[in-house]
């Protein structure tokens, strides 16, 4: 019955990227870069409450030096690609790792956010694609004409359409869930966990995720309620 040689050694071990631990480390680093972007983006966006002049000036400022703009964009694109690549590889392993499923398996100690990362991630990707087509490229612009450079007008016109706002708010809630797990999980993945500090980190992750999520959601809500027009 022995079909394989017992104790046979192979010199084809999993290197850094091939191992699941290495992929998670890459996801942690790229996730951190994307977190920095998400924080910067929400702070920039909140200038919408200071009026059209301020927001449009901020928009011009971001595009002032194309070299810097594209350097940042390339870093973000590479991060997104690596983050998704690693997650697809991990998801594939997950599907292969339990060929016969349980008739019943209860969750005892995991958070809802952590279990739904594979759902929130792809939906956020779909949102980002839509969002770029809507407000960066101006290809899809429900609710009025897209005016290149008039950021304020494009935001107000877009969010005046109820389903654009609804889709945006839904996606930002998912971003909040994704960050709630991701912000503390990235530290775990690069090897930091401490019985005294990690509980504080988890609370900070919740606060930061809530703040980012609510910061984004405040903009379509303000447009829908007529606070900014």
């Amino acid at each position, binding site marked *: *019955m022995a079909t394989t040689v017992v104790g046979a050694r192979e010199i084809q*071990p999993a290197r850094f990227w091939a191992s*699941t631990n290495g992929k998670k480390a890459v996801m942690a680093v790229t996730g951190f870069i994307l977190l920095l972007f998400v924080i910067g983006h929400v702070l920039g966006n909140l200038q919408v409450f200071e009026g059209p002049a301020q927001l449009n000036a901020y928009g011009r400022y971001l595009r002032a030096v194309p070299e810097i703009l594209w350097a940042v964009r390339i870093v973000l694109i590479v991060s997104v690609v690596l983050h998704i690549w690693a997650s697809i590889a991990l998801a594939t392993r997950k599907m292969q790792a339990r060929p016969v499923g349980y008739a019943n*398996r209860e969750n005892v100690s*995991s958070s809802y956010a952590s279990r739904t990362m594979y759902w929130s991630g792809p939906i956020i990707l779909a949102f980002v694609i839509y969002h770029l087509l809507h407000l960066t490229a101006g290809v899809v612009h429900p609710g009025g004409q897209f005016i290149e450079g008039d950021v304020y007008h494009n935001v107000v016109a877009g969010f005046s359409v109820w389903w654009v706002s609804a889709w945006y708010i839904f996606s930002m809630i998912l971003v909040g869930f994704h960050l709630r797990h991701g912000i503390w999980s990235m530290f775990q993945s690069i090897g930091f*966990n401490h019985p005294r500090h990690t509980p504080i980190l988890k609370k900070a992750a919740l606060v930061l995720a809530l703040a980012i999520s609510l910061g984004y959601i405040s903009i379509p809500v303000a447009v829908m309620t007529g606070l900014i027009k």
Partner: protein
Amino acid sequence: MRVTLKIWRQTNRADKGRFVKYQVGDVNPDMSILECLDVLNEQLIERDEEPVAFEHDCREGICGSCGFMINGVAHGPLPATTVCQLTMRHFKDGAELLLEPWRARAFPIIKDLTVDRRSFDRIIAAGGYISVSTGSAPDGNAIPVPKEAADRAMDAAACIGCGACVAACPNASPALFTGAKIAHLGTLPQGAPERDRRAIHMVAQMTAEGFGGCTNIGECTGVCPKEIPLEVIARMNHDFIWGSWRERDNVVTTMRPFTEWSTGSKFQINEQETD
């Protein structure tokens, strides 16, 4: 008290397997669920039926042999308890319990509730040891060990290798097991010289076995009978990342996973003839 046990019956890997319901009366509330299975098996043997195969050894919660899913939770509903220590008084009279084996590609089923966990042995063989000179016993206090390090190493060393972490993990990842071994040995000065090598080799073997990857969900620590904390997984990641960075010689080997039994073994299983 009496209980209904809905047990996964599967004669071998070729068999498809199914749940079979058994009524067990005369259950003493103070007996463990393994003893309850013993009672059931005696009845099955009297009726000339095949008894339920399950693994067990010490029956005092320290060997790591026993373990199966009870109503969807590894080792049952009581925290920090192996099934051999789980007494029937924790269930209601007349309760229906669903007993299922650990399910993972790296834990192929042997029979009923018994799975082949040799993948864990191979992960240990890859680096879960320290190299020492043999000979007369060394002086007890020759190497100073900080009390805190000894305590942390002891907490990680509490891992009995039962496999509940893999069973409970949605990814079927053994990160808690591997992390416990890496944290246990790497925290102590005796394990420090091989720290990088250990992490790289054990992670490589873990990957070769076809387990899923840890996504920091934390189901494992919730069912762990020894309450190993998630901290050990971070420790593994830390040692692996830095070990991979410092590594120079590139000589990492992994053992080919094998799931068959060699001929001549007393555990020989003929996939075709067993019924």
